[in-house]
């Protein structure tokens, strides 16, 4: 029965490629466990300490993302982060509640977002048509996080280390209700460069 | 000199050498019975009605620059009386009636064009709100019609009906609404007031008030002190600055509204169309330019210019409504600084300081009010008490709770 509720593609219904070439490749990132972490007042220091002990990472104090052992944490606001687990199950949040509860509010948001990983030589050119921020190599570096607006939709972006091919890789999260409009905007911006879309097979 | 076709023909024969200045460019006297600060539409109309209705001609209009270059010279010229609330509706309808006879009254063609104002709606809820407004209008004898989508389509076939994000369900139409040639309104009132003896003093900035105890008894200006029994302030957009000279704080923020005109084209848009859901409205000027606008920029400003996000939003609204204007070109964009009041409605009232009266808070809707505002302000200045039609426009209403909030946005001026 629980199979039914396994993570599934939010994008399953959309057409998959447009244009020719592979300037922009979008891969749906499903199965991520996501939680919102907000420090309790006056508990930041303890939270940071606890977090370091448990995850082996220092909570970034700006719009940065760090990752270790399949868990990433991205600063999205003063004293607020998104905690992202790769292929993590339900326990990702519940299992950590006890651990962090005293220092932070930890709220499950795994289902709140549609997340795409974008790569390809033209990712920046394509995104430049969509978001009003500077994505230049030196301005939006690997590990940087940005929340901004994409055609009236609130989005969060973070840049990963470049692909082995040297292509930039950027992940983009949007509220899941916007997924179709986001997809359409992305496809139109990328078609001139060749757009490949790879939703999750499970869809 | 009276304006007429005959006068024009006669002057044509003598190379138009016989025309005289439309209004006297007066130098300030040392004292007047009434001083009106500001040389915009409201101030000039006030002066005119003071002279015409109340026989008070010892009046000076003091304008810091040249008359008519404030908001009255930069608005999108829409006139209408499609208001909802009883505090507003009779006032604006009276204004509409004054517009209807204005040209003959002033002997100046202000090109009042009753080509209709259509407000589009896109949902049942919006429709019901419009119907409520339309019914209020009808209760006051104002014309209002409810159009369904098919009727809107017949009237404006070039709107986006088939591919719209927010499909048009219909519209509220006031046929008597329309536009007027804004500059001509200024010049017409100036000429008519000047003819009746009013001094129009340009390049005369009011920089302070003269006081006798609590009482205001004149103004300081860049052209010297001028005394007066009564001082009326009608400086739209700058009301807070002038009030501050008298130590008053007002329920007003100054905001910028941008407006736009396209290159002139042959007639395309027969009426005024407003697309509330897309923050866009448009009409076509007699010269052929599409005159359009949208929301205010949304932050306190005295800069008389706006920024790109609003321009993008307005053009997007335009394209969402009328995808046929895509290849027409925007010719000029500009901004005006307006008094945004805390409930979106104006103030015509005495101030706590005897001798000082205020006409302010017109937001983006004061052009259409010009005749009635002048009429009622003149009444207040002449009689010391509010005109019946402007009774609701009191300063005290914010304290008492008698707000006139057509949009229900509350004390958040950038949302009105």
């Amino acid at each position: 029965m629980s199979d039914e509720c396994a993570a599934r593609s939010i994008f399953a219904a959309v057409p998959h490629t447009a244009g020719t070439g592979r300037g922009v490749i979008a891969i749906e990132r499903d199965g991520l466990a996501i939680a919102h972490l907000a420090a309790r007042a006056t508990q930041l220091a303890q939270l940071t300490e606890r977090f370091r002990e448990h995850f082996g990472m220092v909570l970034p104090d700006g719009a940065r993302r760090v990752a270790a052992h399949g868990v990433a944490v991205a600063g999205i606001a003063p004293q607020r982060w998104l905690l992202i687990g790769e292929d993590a199950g339900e326990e990702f949040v519940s299992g950590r509640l006890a651990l962090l509860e005293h220092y932070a509010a930890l709220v499950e948001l795994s289902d709140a977002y549609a997340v795409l990983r974008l790569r390809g030589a033209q990712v920046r050119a394509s995104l430049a048509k969509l978001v009003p921020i500077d994505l230049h190599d030196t301005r939006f570096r690997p590990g940087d996080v940005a929340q901004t607006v994409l055609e009236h939709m609130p989005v969060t972006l973070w840049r990963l280390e470049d692909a082995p091919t040297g292509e930039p890789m950027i992940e983009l999260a949007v509220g899941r209700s916007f997924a179709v409009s986001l997809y359409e905007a992305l496809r139109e911006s990328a078609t001139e460069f060749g757009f490949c879309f790879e939703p999750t097979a499970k869809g | 000199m009276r304006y007429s076709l005959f006068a024009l023909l006669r002057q044509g024969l003598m190379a138009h050498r016989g025309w005289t200045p439309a209004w006297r460019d007066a130098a300030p006297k040392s004292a007047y019975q009434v001083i009106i600060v500001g040389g915009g539409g409201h101030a000039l109309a006030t002066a005119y009605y003071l002279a015409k209705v109340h026989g008070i001609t010892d009046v000076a209009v003091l304008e810091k620059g040249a008359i008519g270059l404030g908001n009255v010279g930069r608005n999108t010229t829409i006139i209408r009386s499609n208001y909802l609330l009883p505090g507003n509706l009779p006032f604006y309808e009276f204004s509409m009636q004054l517009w209807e006879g204005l040209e003959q009254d002033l002997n100046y063609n202000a090109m009042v064009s009753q080509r209709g104002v259509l407000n589009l709606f896109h949902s049942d809820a919006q429709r019901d709100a419009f119907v409520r407004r339309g019914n209020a209008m009808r209760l006051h004898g104002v014309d209002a019609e409810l159009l369904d989508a098919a009727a809107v389509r017949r009237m404006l076939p070039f709107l986006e009906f088939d591919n719209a994000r927010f499909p048009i369900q219909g519209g509220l139409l006031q046929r008597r609404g329309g536009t007027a040639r804004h500059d001509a309104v200024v010049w017409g009132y100036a000429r008519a007031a000047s003819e009746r003896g009013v001094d129009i003093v340009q390049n005369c900035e009011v920089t302070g008030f003269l006081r006798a105890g609590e009482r205001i008894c004149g103004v300081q200006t860049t052209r010297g002190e001028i005394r007066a029994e009564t001082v009326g302030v009608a400086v739209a957009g700058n009301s807070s600055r002038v009030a501050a000279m008298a130590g008053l704080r007002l329920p007003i923020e100054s905001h910028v509204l941008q407006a736009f005109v396209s290159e002139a084209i042959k007639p395309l848009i027969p009426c005024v169309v407003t697309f509330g859901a897309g923050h866009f409205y448009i009409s076509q000027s007699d010269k052929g330019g599409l005159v359009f606008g949208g929301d205010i920029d949304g932050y306190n400003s005295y800069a008389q210019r706006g920024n790109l996000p609003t321009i993008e939003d307005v053009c997007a609204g335009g394209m969402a409504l009328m995808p046929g204007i895509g290849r027409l070109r925007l010719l000029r964009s500009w901004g005006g600084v307006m008094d945004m009041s805390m409930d979106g409605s104006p103030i015509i009232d005495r101030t706590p300081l005897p001798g000082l009266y205020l006409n302010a808070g017109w937001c983006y809707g004061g052009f259409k009010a010009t005749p009635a505002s002048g009429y009622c302000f003149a009444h207040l200045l002449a009689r010391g008490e509010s005109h019946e039609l402007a009774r609701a426009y009191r300063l005290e209403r914010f304290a008492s709770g008698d707000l006139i909030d057509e949009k229900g946005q509350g004390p958040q001026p950038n949302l009105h």
Partner: protein
Amino acid sequence: MRINCPFCGERDLSEFSYLGDADSAKAIASAAQSEREQIDAVYLRANPAGVHRELWYHAFGCGSWLNVTRDTRTHEIFAVQLSRERTP
């Protein structure tokens, strides 16, 4: 206009929403005030032509409220602070 959000960096106007004069915000918080004081705080504004201290919300960014000091004649911005960290 671009506002330098202390958390997100410099961002375009389109990401922000505006509230207005920062001083009136304070008065709203102290509900213990008299009706007259509340009325003044909620409705009256200095509305200066010049330096203005005002509140903005980084709606499409980090969700922070910002205290911005700005010239209303030129739109020049002199300072931006997180409201929650503002120095009184």
